[in-house]
């Protein structure tokens, strides 16, 4: 590797800035980079000013704290999936949920609101944030929930270090509900989803005022228009025929599509690979839960990966975002290569959401979002020992660990009654 001071020089991290930065080196870990470099044994990672400045043997800097990580495994901070972390506290208590805009009217009578961005409702002080963070989840993508709209609104990737302005630049995306769920809102046929979307797109392109029956306000037209210029639109859809239709629709309209759900995506894997359309899926989905996913399979992830489709994992479960590792581990048990499974919860979602240059890998120049594990990070019996976000150590506590500590003492004293 390059001498560390040269790297630091290259990054402008020498001199005064270096002296004040909270530097540390994680020494001797098995480093899973989630990059083309794969896994590096007995490797050091040097962090200065919240950024990874060196990855290799014998990395060090003056005054940098040394963390002995021999026998442990280091990964990038994990992607929690598409969630409502910070947008909800308790799913069943609607007053605590800010992820959904309910119009309470059929889709063709609605004022469509692509300008809605749920990022504005993000609460970094949510009780859920530390619960996920101590398990190694350092970022998530805020996704509006399917209310009764086809266009659900926009969301962004956010870092979970507790800062208020948490959105990661360049990650804003539009979310669209299609398939059987969207059909319910659009009069009963999924064909109407395309009809109505085409109408909205037509309005977005139109110059001047639009007459009666318009789906979009002026702000909505502006918002949607931006996505028609190569913006990222996440389409929630499972059935193979819908996935193809969405991909073609996106291409016709200048949209960069992402498939969310995709339980039947493996059936059209080659076409998705060819069109470079990524899929965000839950690799545990193997039941024909409805007639949009009769072909659901535990091998969905492995088959997509083999065909060259970029995949990321999401359970969509806010409270249980921490289980992304279990999704990845099970995908490995069902044929996905280990490195690809790690990438599906780190670098690939970062690339999909446009933050791959700064997040999702252990590489020089990346934000120091790091997790040190006491074993194989995809194994259910492994736990996080230490977590850093942007180089800052996460206090390994949450409301749950405080509850635990209170009652573990009681049961050990035979007083839990």
């Amino acid at each position, binding site marked *: 590797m390059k001498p560390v001071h040269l790297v630091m020089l290259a990054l402008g991290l020498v001199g005064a800035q270096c002296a004040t930065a909270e530097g540390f080196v994680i020494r001797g870990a098995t480093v899973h980079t989630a990059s083309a470099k794969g896994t590096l044994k007995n490797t050091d990672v040097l962090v200065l000013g919240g950024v990874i400045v060196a990855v290799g043997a014998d990395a060090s800097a003056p005054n940098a704290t040394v963390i002995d990580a021999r026998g442990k495994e280091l990964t990038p901070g994990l992607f929690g999936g598409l969630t409502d972390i910070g947008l909800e*506290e*308790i*799913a*069943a*208590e609607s007053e605590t949920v800010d992820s959904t805009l309910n119009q309470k009217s059929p889709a063709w009578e609605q004022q469509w609101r692509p300008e809605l961005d749920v990022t504005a409702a993000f609460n970094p002080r949510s009780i*859920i944030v530390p*619960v996920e963070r101590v398990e190694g989840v350092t970022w998530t993508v805020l996704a509006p929930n399917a209310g009764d709209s086809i266009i659900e609104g926009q969301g962004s990737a956010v870092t979970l270090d507790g800062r208020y302005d948490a959105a990661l630049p360049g990650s804003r995306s539009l979310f669209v509900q299609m398939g059987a769920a969207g059909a319910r809102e659009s009069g009963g046929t999924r064909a109407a989803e395309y009809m109505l979307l085409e109408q909205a797109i037509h309005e977005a392109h139109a110059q001047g005022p639009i007459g009666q029956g318009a789906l979009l306000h002026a702000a909505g037209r502006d918002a949607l228009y931006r996505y028609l210029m190569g913006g990222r639109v996440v389409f929630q859809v499972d059935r193979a025929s819908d996935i193809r239709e969405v991909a073609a629709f996106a291409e016709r309209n200048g949209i960069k599509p992402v498939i969310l759900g995709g339980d039947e995506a493996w*059936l059209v894997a080659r076409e998705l690979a060819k069109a470079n359309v990524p899929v965000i899926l839950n690799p*545990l*989905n*193997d*039941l*024909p*839960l*409805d*007639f949009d996913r*009769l*072909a659901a399979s535990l091998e969905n992830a492995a088959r997509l990966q083999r065909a060259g489709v970029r995949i990321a994992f999401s359970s969509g479960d*806010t*409270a*249980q975002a*921490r*289980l992304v590792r*279990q999704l990845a*581990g*099970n995908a*490995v*048990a069902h044929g996905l290569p280990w490195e690809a499974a790690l990438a599906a919860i780190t670098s690939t979602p970062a690339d999909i959401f446009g933050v791959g240059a700064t997040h999702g890998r252990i590489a020089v120049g990346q934000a120091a979002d790091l997790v040190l594990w006491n074993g194989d990070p*995809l*194994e*259910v*019996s*492994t*736990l996080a020992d230490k977590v850093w976000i942007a180089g800052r150590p996460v206090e390994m506590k949450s409301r*749950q660990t405080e*509850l*635990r*500590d209170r*009652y*573990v003492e*009681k*049961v*050990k004293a*035979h*007083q*839990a*009654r």
Partner: protein
Amino acid sequence: MNATSRVALLFSTALMVSGAFAADPFPSTYQVPVNPPVLIQGATVLTGSGERLDGADILIANGRIQSIGKGLAPPADATIIDAHGKWVTPGIIDIHSHLGVYASPAVKGLDDGNEATSPVTSNVWAEHSVWPQDPGFETALEGGVTTMEILPGSANLIGGRSVIVKNVQAVTYQGMKFPGAAYGLKMACGENPKRVYGGKNQAPSTRMGNVAGYRQAFADAQDYQQQWDKYNRELATYNKKKAEQAEKSEQTDGTAKKSKDKDAAADKELTPPSPPKRDLKLETLAEVMKGNIRVQMHCYRSDEMATMLDVAAEFGFKITAFHHAVEAYKIADRLAEKNVCAAMWADWWGFKMEAYDGVQENLAIVDYPEHSCAIVHSDSADGIQRLNQEAAKAMAHGQRVGLTVPPERAIRWLTYNPAKSLGLEDRIGTLEPGKGADVVIWNGNPFSVYALAEQVFIDGALTFDRAHPKITPRSDFLLGRHIAESPL
């Protein structure tokens, strides 16, 4: 008589309701299949009785475990399975499943889990909603699940009877029904009943309304039982008198043979009592109070569990297990002292207020006191496929706070303890001679995300074999899919 039919007989005698009703009008038609013996060799065996045996053999014959030990001699016709490097456990038992009643696909036509039309529906029986073609049965089998309790949903205070099934393919649920297993009764605490009925502006709409509802139902059942007791007393008196009369008439037979008119008059005096009308709701609750039906109660919060233990004491019934017991860790000692099981997820939390205090150490904490009964359950067609992983997560979190649970103990969360909560611990749940041969062979330590069940035996019959997919049951529902997926 073999043990199975002995148990069945005992059970049917016990279940004889106050009147002369059939013990089980929907009897099991399941029969233990006939197979040659199987010898599993050289495995790491978690027996479920608390032991770990390395390099052990297991001999299965006639549907039962015959012996466990090193270097067992194979019978002449035995199938031999080389299990060196593999792990063997008892079949996994899930005491909280809605397979078949909330089937896949989750369409309206198959939405049969909650009779949410009245808060007390102890008259409904889950088995009458079970769709044996639910594809979820086979995915659960791939996860090593050999027995499950299928319950009605939790919309109601008292939701109805559960059914215990073996995870075998059958056209009817009777073909899956566990012979001789006692019925369970599903009850529910907390938010679900009050939300469902409060939303209809009906009682209960509060937790105090919930408790009033359980108590009134059992008070009604007490009254019902008293009516039957009174009837039975009157019937006994009648029968006695009738017998006395018959005896008398026999004694006088030779002398007063011709006094037919007199006999008719005496018969008239002896009118048999009329039985009370059967009430299927109260009949089930009366059986609960007699200890013939086991209460399985959905209850998240520790304070509500404590309330329900008092309600049970008031009416003289026992709660066998609290299910979804997210806060069981707060009263672990009390539950162990009362001999009540807690069935838990590893880490579900936060989806509703009563699940807000979930901790990942719940299972390990509940397991800690002496005489505890911690159970991993699923309540989910997904979760049931990976109950071993749920246990593994709980073990890891327990370890971190000094509650170490070794694999040979943790496996009891999935096998012996649920068997005990179903009253079937003498028949399944451990690998011991004489027990039913429900056996899972894993490709490694089952407490790993990478572990897969390779072979699953139910009563000695190979029911799932990862290497031979054709053995695996295929739901009728899934037929034709591959044809539809292949274009011309």
